[in-house]
């Protein structure tokens, strides 16, 4: 059966605390921290972007997959912060890994679910026998407008998954997508920051689609929440995953291992994929995992995975996600953060 043969994550070392951002905009830090269940977020250095993080996450995935990169027949990066407006990110990733020239590449975009889209396509190309291995990456260096609520959570990170048929670490038992046209969050061309619909991003957007996808896949697979050891939801803030989990009948314990947002922030296309890597880091053979992403606009992709015994052999071949999260942290003040994120207007 086809599934994930290698997984890997990457997180930049810089962090900024909620208090530091709140201080500059005169907001009440404690209430933000409580309301969003968020403490700090990751910030990319000026020399990091979606592509550099995708390369490092993919290299970690290759270490676990133990395959020759030349055998990867499809490379997809899903992001809402591709470095070029026109020129693919995937070609640079494929070149850096050594998968060129016999490889299919496309860049994906669908707000925060672009990562699982790439995963969905890579998986199905393997399933239908078109490619031997397919790589799907979710990576973002998300921006929030200065002073806006999103500024507290918009973060940077990447997760990469190599799909294949042999030496599978987690089988993909089923997939399901649920999508409607819902304008909850968007960015027009030439605008620097995204816009969002405030509270409209809650019930009619995040909750409706995650629940639609989760219920849909559970029905399709004939499974129930208690059949799963773990569930990973998209994490726009610390609260929403627990809230939707509760509505669906999942427990806190099922959610916690993949819940990174309180220390990482919302890594957009990397969010639920990174939660999945952290879950793999603790999962045992035969564990069932439910992954449900969410992308504004809006839609959710759901995957049901079953971990194999190979997880114990490969887990430690690359850094564990929570180790990367805790390693070599560098806390920034708002000024340096604004400089790194190019929020300061300079002479040309």
């Amino acid at each position, binding site marked *: 059966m086809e599934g994930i043969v290698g997984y890997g994550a990457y997180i930049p*070392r810089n962090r900024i605390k909620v208090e530091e951002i709140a201080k500059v905009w005169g907001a009440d830090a404690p209430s933000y921290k409580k309301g969003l269940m968020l403490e700090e977020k990751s910030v990319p*250095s*000026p*020399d*990091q*972007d979606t*592509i*550099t993080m995708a*390369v*490092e996450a993919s*290299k970690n995935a290759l270490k676990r997959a133990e395959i020759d990169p030349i055998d990867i027949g499809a490379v997809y990066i899903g992001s809402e912060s591709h*470095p*070029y407006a026109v020129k693919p990110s995937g070609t*640079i990733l494929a*070149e*850096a890994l*050594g998968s060129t020239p016999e490889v299919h590449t496309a860049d994906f975009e669908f707000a925060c679910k672009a990562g699982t889209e790439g995963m969905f396509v890579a998986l199905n190309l393997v399933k239908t026998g078109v490619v031997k291995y397919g790589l799907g990456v979710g990576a973002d260096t998300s921006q929030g407008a200065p002073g806006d609520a999103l500024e507290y959570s918009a973060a940077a990170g990447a997760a990469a998954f190599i799909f294949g048929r042999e030496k599978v670490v987690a089988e993909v038992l089923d997939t399901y997508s649920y999508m409607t046209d819902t304008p909850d969050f968007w960015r027009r061309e030439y605008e620097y920051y995204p816009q969002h619909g405030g509270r409209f991003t809650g019930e009619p957007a995040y909750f409706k689609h995650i629940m639609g996808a989760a219920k849909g896949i559970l029905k399709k697979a004939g499974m129930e929440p208690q059949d799963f050891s773990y569930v990973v939801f998209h994490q726009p803030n610390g609260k929403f995953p627990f809230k939707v989990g509760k509505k669906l009948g999942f427990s806190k314990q099922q959610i916690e291992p993949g819940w990174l947002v309180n220390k990482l922030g919302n890594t957009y296309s990397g969010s639920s994929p990174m939660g999945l890597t952290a879950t793999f880091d603790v999962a045992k053979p035969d564990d069932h995992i439910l992954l449900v992403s969410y992308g504004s606009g809006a839609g959710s992709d759901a995957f049901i995975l079953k971990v194999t015994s190979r997880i114990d052999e490969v887990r430690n071949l690359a850094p564990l996600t929570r180790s990367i999260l805790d*390693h*070599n942290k*560098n806390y920034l003040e708002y000024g340096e953060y604004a*400089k790194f994120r190019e929020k300061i207007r*300079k002479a*040309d």
Partner: protein
Amino acid sequence: MSTPSRYWREVPQRYRLEANKCEKCNKKFFPPRLICPECGNRELVKTKIAEKGKIISHTIIRVPPSQYKDQAPYAVGVVEMDDGVNVMGQIVDCDFEDLEVGMRVKIEFRKLFSQGHSGILCYGYKFVPDS
């Protein structure tokens, strides 16, 4: 200041550390060469360099060249890779005070600079602490 073709030509080295080797002298060359400077052998064989090494010298650039205008100060060093090849590159993700000769580092893929607002993005290798 590179043109797209000058940048693209070096991609196998900058992205994948491709090198070559003189099998007579057992010496590796990065970047690859057409002729061995030690013995004149013209049949050099493809290889890659090691991804980890130790710092043999380092400095902190305070007055940068124009394409790095906004990135100074940054550290640059010469690293002796574990297979004996010396490589020059920036050393990042560590405090300047921690830089010392002998420190272990490893290669990471980063964006080096962009050619202005509308030019291409130039990627390549940098060194990070290997802890």
